[in-house]
Every structure is written in C-alpha cells, then in structure tokens.
C-alpha cells in the first residue's frame, strides 16, 4: 500500500523515545504492590478483629465477613510476593521508561494540582486553568486556542450542570463574586 493511501494521520510531537532507559521493572512494582496490599490486609484485618470477627448471640459480628476477606487478601498478597520474587530471577519486563514516566507525570501532576485548586478556587476555575494550561504546555497548542477551548468547555459545563441540571459543583471566590 502506498503512503498516499494513508489519509488519516495524527502526529505526536512529544512521543516517548523508544530507547529510553527503564525507571523500574514490573517485577519490582509487583513486589511493592504486594507488600502494600499485605500491609493493608493486616491493618484491615486488625480493625475487623477489633470490631468483632466472631459470633455473638445475634449471629456474625460486623467484622466477621471482612476479617476473613482480609486473610484471603493477605494470603493472595503473600503468594503474589513469592511469585514476583521467583519471577524476578527471569528477565523482568519494564514497568515504565523514563520518557513514559515523564509523560505520565505530565498528566498526573496537573491533575493533582487541579484537585488542589478545586478545593480552594472551585471546580470551574480549576478546570479552566487545567485545560488551558495543559493544551498550551503539553500540547503546544496556540495560546488563544487553548484559552478559548478552556473557556468554552468550562462555560458549557457550568450551564449544563449548575444551571440546566441543578447539579451543584464546588465553587470559589470568583463564582461568589458573581452571586453563585
């Protein structure tokens, strides 16, 4: 098939390099996840045991069912830990390369900031800042297009949820200044 037949093409200017070094292997992440899950199982198991994990005159106590589930989760985590440790001796896959991690953080950090800003300035201001900032900084899209898109999207969301459907979103000082 000739190149002229390929009519739909979307380029990615910030694509991760194929030869980027690995940050961490899947095996290591599996071990960390299993350890965290094991810790969670112990914490939840203890809380359920404290709440009551046996029988009283009315039947099973509130912690009975989740206590045994904590044990199942703990056993699954220990099995997973052993399996991951044994599999680690073989060739382990890459969990994420440095270039990929950079891109993931490029989404995660703005999302984290968005949540933080929402708490103080409200959801609509935060969403405007997120969309405009993301389009401009990550997508390298023209400033006026980024600002216009962010404004239109935020305005549509505001009209749809707060006005048309009466779903009240968290608001900040800006909305308060306009009487909302």
């Amino acid at each position: 098939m000739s190149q002229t037949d390929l009519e739909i093409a979307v380029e990615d200017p910030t694509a991760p390099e194929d030869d980027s070094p690995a940050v961490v292997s899947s095996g290591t992440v599996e071990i960390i996840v299993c350890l965290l899950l094991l810790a969670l199982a112990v914490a939840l198991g203890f809380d359920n045991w404290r709440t009551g994990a046996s029988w009283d005159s009315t039947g099973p106590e509130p912690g009975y069912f989740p206590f045994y589930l904590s044990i199942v989760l703990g056993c699954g985590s220990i099995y997973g830990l052993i399996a991951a440790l044994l599999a680690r001796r073989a060739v382990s896959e890459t969990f994420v390369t440095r270039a990929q991690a950079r891109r993931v953080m490029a989404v995660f950090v703005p999302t984290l900031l968005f949540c933080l800003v929402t708490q103080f300035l409200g959801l609509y201001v935060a969403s405007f800042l997120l969309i405009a900032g993301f389009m401009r900084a990550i997508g390298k899209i023209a400033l006026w297009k980024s600002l216009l898109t962010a404004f239109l999207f935020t305005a549509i969301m505001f009209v749809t949820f707060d006005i048309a459907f009466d779903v009240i979103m968290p608001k900040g000082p800006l909305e308060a200044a306009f009487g909302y």
Partner: protein
Amino acid sequence: MEAFGLLLHGFAVLLTGKTLVLMMVGLVLGIFVGVLPGLGGPNGVAILLPLTFTMDPTSAIVMLSCIYWGALFGGAITSILFNIPGEAWSVATTFDGYPMAQQGRAAEALTAAFTSSFIGSLVAVLLITFLAPMISSFALKFGPPEFFAVYLLTFCSFVGLGREAKHKTVISMSLGLLLAGIGMDTVSGQLRMTFGSSELLRGINFLVAVIGLFGISEILLTMEERLALRGHAASISLRVVLSVWKDLPKYWVTLLRSSFIGCWLGITPGGAIAASFMGYNLAKRFSKDPESFGKGRIEGVFAPETAAHASGTAALLPMLALGIPGSGTAAILLGGLMVWGLNPGPLLFVEHKDFVWGLIASMYLGNVVGLVLVLTTVPIFASILRVPFAAVAPMIVVSCAIGAYAIQNAMFDIWLMLGFGVVGYVFKKIGIPLAPFTLALVLGNRAEDAFRLSMIGSGGDLKVFWSNGLVGSITTLAIVLLFWPAIDGLLVRVGWTQRTGTTSR
C-alpha cells in the same frame, strides 16, 4: 407471548421525543468515546454517568446503555482503520479487519463489523426478552443461601475462568469486597475500617472508584503511549453495505455459532474477550480454508464481532434478572441503577415494569439506530482522532471530577477518584484485573448480607449452602469452577479433553 406484550409496552414507554433524543445523544457520545484512543465502553459509561443524575431512571438508563452500544460500535472503527483495538475484545477483529483495510476493503470490513455487532446484540436481546422474565420469576423463590450461592458462583467463575493469574484475580476481588465493607455496617450500625475518618463514614462509593479506575487510569495509560496514529480513510457507500448484506446468508453458521458462544460467555462471566477469541478460533477451525484467516477474510471480522457483542449484551441478562452483572460495564450500569434507587434483581421485573421493558425496548431500538448512525458517519468519527489528545485529556479529567463530586457532593471523592486512578494505572500495568474488583465492589454488601442472613438462619452451619438441591447444585458448581484449571488439567492428563485455548491466532 406475555413477553411480547410487555415489550410492546416498553416501546410505548420509549417512543417519546425526549427519550429518542437521549438515545441519539447517548449513541453519538458512545461512538465518540469508542473512537478516542484509550477510552471504551466501561470508561465512557462511568465518565458520562453524571449527565444522567437528574434524569428519570428510564431516560437515564436508556442513555447509558446507548453510550455502551455506541462505544462498542466505535471500537471497531479504530480496530479496522488503525489496527488499534479500543478494547481487548476488539483484538481479534484486527486480525482480519486491518488486513482488509490495507487491501482497500475498509468499507467492507467496517460494514461487516457493524452488521455482525448488530446481529450478535440482537440475538442476545432476544434471549434477554424471553429468558430474563423467566429467570427473574424463578429467582423470586430464592432465599439468602441461594443468593449467596449465586454470588459465590459469580466470584468463583471469575477466578476459575479468567485469563489472568489466579492469585491476581483473588487479590482484586478480595480487595473490592473489603472496600465495599468500609463504613457503617448495614446490620449492626457499627463502624468498620474507617480508622476514625469522618469521610469514610459514608463508605467508598462504587462509582467514584470506577471513575478513577477506568477514567483517570486510562488517561495516564494513553498519555504514556505514543499517540501518533496512521490509518486508512473510509467512507461507506450503500453499494458496499448491500453487497455485504447480500452475502450474509453464506455465513449463517459462523454468525449463529458466534452468537451462541457470545450469549453463553456473557451470561456466565466468561466475558466478551474470551467470546471474541473463541468465536474467531472456532470460525478458523471449522473453515475449509483456515490458512486464509489473518489475511483479510471477512469471516474473521464476522466471528469475533458477533461473539463479543452477543456477550456484552447478554451480560445484562443476569444483571437484570438476578442483580448480578456479567461484565465490568454491566456492573457500572448496575451501579447507575442503584443511584436512582432501583434494586436490580427479580423484584425489578415486578416493581418497575415500565423501566425494565423500556430498557429492553431501547436495546432493540438503540442497536438499529446505532447501526444506521455508524454506517453513515464513519468518516466524521474517524476524523475525531485528528483532535489533539492534549485537548481531550484535560476535558476527560474534568468530566471525571464532575462525576465523582456529583455522586455525593463531597470534595473527598475527587481525591479518592485520583487515588483510584493511580491504583488502576498500576494494577493494569502489572496485570491485576479490574473487572473482578469492580464486580466485588458493587456486589460486596449484597453478598455479605446474603451470607450473614444465611448464617443467622442456620445458626452458623455452613451446611446451609447444601441444604436443598438448588442451593447445593449452585454451590458445588461454584467450587468446581473455582478449581476449574486444575480439573481441566486433570481431564487433559487422563485424555478426556483437549486443552482449550482462547488466544491462539
């Protein structure tokens, strides 16, 4: 005949201007999320759920199910034109669909995919129409032990029949069940696993978790990958459509077999992924020319698409009749029903006839409208991929946050959504399946209640789960399915069966 009359009533409920508009909006939004890289049916339904919060239940579920149908149709567009399976069940479609596009037969492949999706769904909807009322009236006789046995069967079949490592499914499921138990115990009113946090008093809302697990994690995963796409353009002409439809009778065995496989694996929680591969493999095995598969054979598109869509649709049967979702997306729809105070299960057919039959009617109509819509708008939707993902991604994040907040009007839920997004990202990358987690989270409280009531009734005697033929059969079947890999291995060793594979190509 009673079902037919009720279905007509369902159409009467459905055929209002407002519902039809919502149906179209749902389909368009669904195709949109199906086409966008990284998004798909479950994500689309989870993210767009808040749009339906203020609607009446029938309108809302019609819109949500149409988002689902639309996403299923949309997934085929990227599979065939770009060799990018939007969902795991679309992988088998790429085997022959993409080669067909490379040969300049993209329109033919797309028509085949959309038509077979329609046929698969139609067979499953017919099954739902006639079987669901029977199952639900049968299930009205169920007591707590029978219900717990059915929940156990669902959980065990996910472990036994799932493709992932068994311990990972167990981890995922037990974590989901544990998180479902956080908050106030429904029986005693005592607080559990809250560790003094007032935010956790409400418990972890299933939908908040789903929005994070499916929506946010997909954004992280999609951004991680290269987003440069190169694909084939396609527009479908009436001549191509009619030519594919004219040849349909030639493939009736493939279509019927795939529909059957899909329905079977949809009702049992085998899932659309297994169905699509099994449909493809069997079509290849029974073909006179198996070597031609993978090189652009139209049967290789018919088989997996029919099976996947029959499975995806049939997964709604146990959800409606028993309150047990057969797939991750069905679980999200079930969560949606709970938002509107509807309790899926046998009583739904008695107490909310309008709703149930309106929904079933919408399945018929949604599929017909969806088929026409995708056949006529492929170039428009394919061009959505030209919109930079850097513009789409933050909008999805904002939509997710709106959804998470709107459920309980709690800022904490936005943080929880972000946390689940990270969990979903890590779990997906290390192969811990999210479908059992979702299922356990939505069914956790019901399963626990059924277990506790059974145990209270029996004075703590586990023999209650074998106290009569019905509950005993279901419990035994659950245990057989849990240990199915070992049993299957044993049967292979003694030469009774051949090992079944679902991923060979």
